[in-house]
C-alpha cells in the first residue's frame, strides 16, 4: 500500500503494523491496537523503540490522551470512506490535545477524501485508491480557498477578508 507523507509518495515506511496476538519486533517502530495498548501499556512503554497506537473509529482521542507525549505516531482507521468519525478524532488530537507527531489515516483512504483529511490534521496516508498515487497527490490542491479554520491552520476566507480590509484601511488612512 503506497504511503503518502508530506504530500509526496514516501519511499519507505519504517513502521510495522503488529496484530494483537503477534510478538513485537525487537527494535523497530511498531503500530499496535488501542486494546493492546490498554492491556500492555507498561511493557510497551518500556520498549526502546517508537510506538504508535491505532484507533478504531469508535475509539476517540480520549483513549490515549494521557500518553500522547509518549507516542510518535497515531493511526486512525477508516473502515469505509463514508465513516467520518476519524475526522473529528484528528481535529481533536491536533487542536485540543496538541499532538504534534505523525497522524496517519489508514484503511479505506481514497483520493477524494485526502484534502478533507489533510485539513483535519492528517499528515500521512496509507493510500488505498485506484487512481495511481502520483496522480492522487493533485487532490490536495484542487480547492485553493477554505471557509473554515481547521487543524491545518490554513487562512479562512473570513480571515483573508478582514486582513484585506485592514490593509486597505491602512493604505487609505496613511
Amino acid at each position, binding site marked *: 500500500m503506497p504511503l503518502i507523507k508530506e504530500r509526496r509518495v514516501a519511499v519507505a515506511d519504517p513502521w510495522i503494523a503488529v496484530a494483537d496476538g503477534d510478538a513485537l519486533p525487537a527494535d523497530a517502530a511498531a503500530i499496535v491496537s488501542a486494546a493492546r495498548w490498554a492491556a500492555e501499556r507498561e511493557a510497551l512503554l518500556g520498549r526502546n523503540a517508537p510506538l504508535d497506537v491505532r484507533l478504531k473509529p469508535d475509539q*476517540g482521542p480520549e483513549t490515549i490522551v494521557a500518553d500522547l507525549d509518549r507516542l510518535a505516531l497515531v493511526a486512525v482507521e477508516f473502515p469505509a*470512506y*463514508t*465513516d*467520518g*468519525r476519524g*475526522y*473529528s478524532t484528528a*481535529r481533536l488530537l491536533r*487542536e*485540543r490535545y496538541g499532538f504534534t507527531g505523525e497522524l496517519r489515516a489508514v484503511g479505506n483512504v*481514497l483520493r*477524494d*477524501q485526502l*484534502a*478533507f*483529511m489533510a*485539513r*483535519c490534521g492528517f499528515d500521512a496516508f496509507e493510500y488505498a485508491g*485506484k*487512481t495511481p498515487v502520483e496522480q492522487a497527490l493533485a487532490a490536495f490542491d*484542487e*480547492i*485553493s*480557498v*477554505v*471557509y*473554515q*479554520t*481547521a487543524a491545518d491552520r490554513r487562512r479562512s*476566507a*473570513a*480571515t*483573508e*477578508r*478582514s486582513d484585506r*480590509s485592514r490593509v486597505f484601511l491602512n493604505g487609505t488612512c496613511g
Partner: protein
Amino acid sequence: MYVYDEIDQTLVDERVAQFRDQMRRRVAGELSEDEFRPLRLMNGLYLQLHAYMLRVAIPYGTLSSAQLRQLATIGRRWDRGFGHFTTRQNLQYNWPKLEDTPDILAALAEVQMHALQTSGNCIRNVTADQYAGVAAGEAADPRIYSELIRQWSTLHPEFSFLPRKFKIAVTGCADDRAAVKVHDIGLVARRNVAGELGFEVIVGGGLGRAPMIGHTVRAFLPERHLLSYLEAILRVYNRYGRRDNKFKARIKILVHERGAAAFTADVEAEWEAMRLDAVDLPPEEVARVAAFFAPPPYEGLPGGEDRALTAHRFEDRAFAQWLPTNVAAYKQQGYAIANISLKPEGGIPGDATSEQMEAVATLADRSSFGEIRVTHAQNLVLPHVAQRDLHAVWQTLRAHDVTASNLSLVSDIIACPGLDYCALANARSIPVAQRILRRFAGLERQHDIGELGIKISGCINACGHHHVGAIGILGVDRKGEEYYQITLGGHAGTDASIGEIVGPAVSSEQVVDAIDTIVATYVAQRRDGERFIDTYRRVGKEPFKESLYATH
C-alpha cells in the same frame, strides 16, 4: 442579495473543475459507481428511475433575476424546458445527461450558483423564511446567518461524511414559515431583554420514518457564538450518531436515544472545550455579509391601500380573488409581497417552464428590485412589489398561467416527485396531486374551505412533508399496488405537530374521494373562523375516521 467576492467565485469554479475530473475518472473506470456515488451526490447529482437528476442549490430560497434566467436557459438547453422547485427551496432538473453535468455546473457558476451539498451525508443547503427581510417584526434577517452558515458548511473538512444528511433552517420571525421544528437544527433569531441578538437553537426535529419535533437545546445563544455552537452540535453528532442502521442515523435518533437533557449536556461540554478554537467569525465579516441584505432603495410611498390598486380590485374580479390569498403584508408602507402559485389546476406542483421562469425574472426586474424567493411550499415570491404595480404584475403572471389564487388553500399542494421520477418511491405523488387539484378546482369552494395544507410523499422518506400536512398523504406499496395512508392534524408552524394516521390506507381510486370526505367533515364540524387544523385539534380524529370508513 449576497454577491460573491473572488474567494467565493474561486471555490465554485474550482469545484466545477474538480467534478469534471471526477466524472472523467468514473468514465475511465478509475472510480467504481460505489466510489463515485458520494462524490456526485455532494454535487447534487442523483441517479433516478429513468435518468440522472441534478439538484441545484438555491441558498435560503433567494434568487436574482439573472440567476432565475440562467436556470431557465439551463432547463431549455440541457433539460426538457422546465425545472422543478422542491420542498427545500431548491430546483431539480429531471433529465440531464451525465456528461453534460460539468457544463451545467459551469453555467451555474457563471451566475454565482452551484449544486454543492444538495445531497449526500453532509450539511445540506440551508433553508430560511421566504419572507426574510420583508416581513414585519423580524428580530434579524435570517439570510445573513443563512449565508454565514452556507459558507461555514461548504466543503467542511470534518462534517462531509456524517452518519446521515443534515438540514438546517433559519427564521427571524416568531411566526415560523421555515418549519424550524422539523429540521436537524432549527434556528430562531430573537432579542433578549437587553436587546441583544441571539438564537433559539432547536435540535433533533425531522420527518421521514420517525417524525419528531425538535428539542430546544439553547433558549438564547448569543449571535457571536453561532458557528462554534453549530460546530459543537455537529461534532457530537459526527462522533456519536448511529452508523449501524441507515434508518436510525439522523440526529433526531441520537437525541431521542441519549435523551434531550444528556444530549444538551454533551453539546454544552463540547462547546465549552472548543469555543477558544476560533471557529466564530470576526464581527467585521458578519457586518460585511449583513450589508448585502440591506433593504432595497424604496420609493417613499404613502401608507394605506394604493388608490389604483383599490380601483383594480373593484373592476377585476379575478384579480380581487388573487389579492387576499396570494399577496401578503410588507413591512414598508406602499409595498406588498406577491406570491406566485406553481399549483395550477391539474398541474404538477412546483414545476415551472423556462418561459415562466423568464417571465418571472422580467417581472422581478421591473417590479421587485430584481429579486425572487422560492418557498418550501414550492411556490415563488416577488418580495418587494409596490402596491400600484400589483395589477400589472398579476396580468403578466396570468399571461403565463401562474395566477392560481390558491396560496395556502386546499389546492396549494406540496408533493414530492414520487414514482414518476424517484428511485426510492413506492407510489406516485404527482397524479394524486393533479386529481386533487382538479377535484377542488372551484375557487369559491376553496375559499370557503380556507387554509388547508395537503402534503403528499411517495415514500416514507417524506420529501413531501406529509407528517406536517393538515392532511398528509403517504404512498405505500401493497402487494404491487399503490395505496395511500392518510394522516391528519400535522402542522409545521410555531405550534408544530405531527399528523396522526386516521385509519387503514386507501386505494389510488379511493384517495380523492377520501380527501373530499375529510374536507366535508371539517366543514360540517368547524366553528366560526376555525381553520382545519383548529377544528382537528378540538374534535380529534374520531369524526373524520367515522365518516371516512363509513363511506368506504
